[in-house]
């Protein structure tokens, strides 16, 4: 075989391999996301989940009946936690001190449902401690990632769900879409 053809074969073969690897890597993201949730959902109050990594533990479960969504929320706020499920942002965990609960998740895995959310949707939040509360979506907000603020002492308990915006396309990843919901007494 001529060297030119040989190099061509090698390049083409290499390209196939890299392509497969990239695809495998990409396909692992939703697979990991879905599998983690399936495992967590089996018994979410039992928080012995060392496979999640240090500092990552289930703290709550959110469900939106209209959209058939049920997801276990993790503590941590790290990229690692985000790979497995929605996570609590800052010190805003449900059942905690703050009257505002803030959760974030990936726009293309766990919070994919946010693109179909409408005002009036009811979100149920159960904590691992056994508490449960319901929130009704009141409005949406688009904000830069570093300009998001939450009230420190709101009249009603609030829930904020955050994900990257726009929902698809590469974008600059600076904007976030927030769904604000108020507690239903």
């Amino acid at each position, binding site marked *: 075989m001529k060297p030119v053809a040989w190099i061509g074969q090698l390049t083409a073969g290499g*390209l196939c391999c890299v392509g497969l690897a990239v695809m495998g890597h*990409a396909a692992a*993201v939703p697979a990991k996301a879905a599998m983690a949730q399936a495992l967590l959902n089996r018994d979410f109050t039992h928080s012995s989940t060392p496979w999640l990594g240090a*500092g990552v533990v289930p703290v709550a479960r959110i469900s939106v009946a209209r959209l058939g969504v049920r997801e276990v929320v993790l503590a941590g706020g790290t990229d690692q936690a985000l790979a497995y499920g929605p996570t609590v942002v800052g010190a805003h965990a449900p059942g905690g*001190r703050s009257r505002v609960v803030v959760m974030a998740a990936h726009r293309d895995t766990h919070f994919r449902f946010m693109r179909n959310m409408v005002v009036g949707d009811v979100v149920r939040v159960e904590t691992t401690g056994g508490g449960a509360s319901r929130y009704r979506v009141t409005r949406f907000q688009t904000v830069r990632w570093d300009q998001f603020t939450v009230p420190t002492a709101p009249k009603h308990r609030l829930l904020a769900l955050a*994900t990257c915006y726009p929902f698809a396309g590469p974008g600059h990843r600076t904007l976030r879409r*927030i769904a604000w919901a108020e507690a239903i007494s």
Partner: protein
Amino acid sequence: MPNRRLAFLSIAAACLASTSLSAAPTDAPGCGELMLHAKGVATQTPAVRLGTDFDVTVSGAIARVRVTQAFRNTSKGWMEASYLYPLPEDGAVDSLKMVVGQKIFVGHIKPRADAQKAYETAVTEGRQAGLVDQQRPDLFRTHVANVGPGQTVVIAIEFQAPVRQLSGEYALRLPLVAGPRYVAPHTLTAADGTPNQAALEDAAAITAPLADPALGKSLNPVTIEVHLNPGFVPANIISPYHPITVRDAGAEAREITLAAGDVPADRDFELRWRSASADPRIGLFRQEFAGQHYLMATITPPADRAIGQVPPREMVFVIDNSGSMAGASIEAAKASILYALGTLRPEDTFNIIRFDDTMTELFVHSVPASAEQLALAHHYVEALDAGGGTEMLPALKAALVDGSPGSTGVRQVVFLTDGEISNEGEMMAEIAAHGGRSRVFMIGIGSAPNQFLMHRMAEAGRGTYTNVAVREDVASKMTALLDRLKAPAVHDLAVAVGGAPLELTPARLPDLYAGEPLTLLGKGDRLQGHLTVTGMIGDKPWRQTVDLAGAADSPAIARLWAGARVADAEAQHSAGQLDDAQTDALIAKLGMDYGIVTRQTSLLAEDVTPVRPSGAALSREELPLLLPNGWDFDKLLGRVPAAANEAADTPEAPSEQLDLPQTSTNYAEALTRGLAMLVVGLIGVIALRLRKGEVA
């Protein structure tokens, strides 16, 4: 974001640790609740109230302290309480008594695991028990089990500690509160990526819930009484952080109490005194214990050395601007650096490194202290703001990078921090491994800095440490420290004992700075002849000799020696001379032989008869701690006030800014990209095959 991560990680770690300790019964309502209530911020007054009394007797150069903690159960149920508190890091706790009504239970020293097990058994069997264990050389925890409704259980512990001497002044420091510590995330994960169980448990052990400032300062009140018998007529008795009342109790004795009666446990107590006469000689003590002879000798370097021409120096300042420094601390630290910058001469070189969970060096390497560079440095320091986690190791590594390691010039690293970290061991190891010719000087900032870290980093780095609590301290403390740094230190110290050999601590002798004596502790079969200390000041030899026959008897020396030997073992461990198992075994043996609390030995007192009815439930409570005075609660917990925007209920409502994480995986795009590569590759392969066929 980072300072939120600080609170979060330590809390999450505690949470994980508590779930891993599932063998212990817990009434925690679950991890979600636990994270914010059990270890986070306590917004309600605890059911078990605590009052602490310190009774201190200073005899010569040694303080004997009795700490009495009264745990009062104000609830209607049975309680178990646990309380985290600091003690002087060079103290040796040797006695525990538990008092319940008329009954006194005397504590015994036990290997830590055995004590823990016996305590847990007492807990479940409904017997009353008190356990004291050590989390760090300066951090202890008391557990009391089965305190009945309305009942008070008193835990009394005793320890001794050497009195510190500095430039002719004597100082006794009682730390009263443990500040919240930053747990570096990397320490929580083992090498293989799984959570490090031991580190998680350790993180839980050294953290406690924080009392919400709304609860006021009345939690955990402290009373202090000092009986001062220094062996000379004391003068200039001052307590810089608490008002005191001083009463004469004889020619050379004073009784000191707090003017306010009781005070909140939110800052360290310090008492300082001098001698009314010029030159007190109280340097030598001895004790015979279990057939061995123990000695404590204070070696005072020559005070009035002519400083003369100070050779050019390199000074590297490292300033901690993490969240725990927010408030009064960062102001004191900034003022300290600015003061030190003012003393640099054009022939000196300097650099400034700041760190929180990130790090920046002002210059790539040290630069001459020209007017322009100093102006730049001033500007840089003044703009520093506190926030974020405390990743100290990278900053220390950077500070120890020596541009000219072969040089014989003086290189001084001045470290300004409150030391609120949990990975102290990593710092000592780094200095032991890469200290080189650099000398490390610690300036403990704030009302309750981590004394253990200050002392041991300075010791490992052959420097000294000092505390700057408030801005008002800066001028006096920094002048004294910079004077010490200027004068040539006594180096290449060696100690020889005529007569019989002595096992001395510290094993690795430090450099001696003007006005800062060295306390040596020794153990041997006999005490005879003279103790001779030799060293070099610059290139001139120096020696000091003391006659051992002149030593005064003191009952504290053997245990102080054992405590110092434990510290030596830890230092040898950091330097890689002892492995984990050897260190543990050595410390356990010292703890058992001398009856002192170490990280391997605990004191346990227990009743033999059950008091809690078998049907009655027991609630566990960990007592919340006040935030050290001057700390910024909101900043620490990441509640950074920001301008309100449309997210608030009303535009005027107070709000908080939150950074939102990056939340797109873009896996679909990656999938498409991969597919495109595969297609192009396949087309290439097919095209080449076809061409090959044609050629053939």
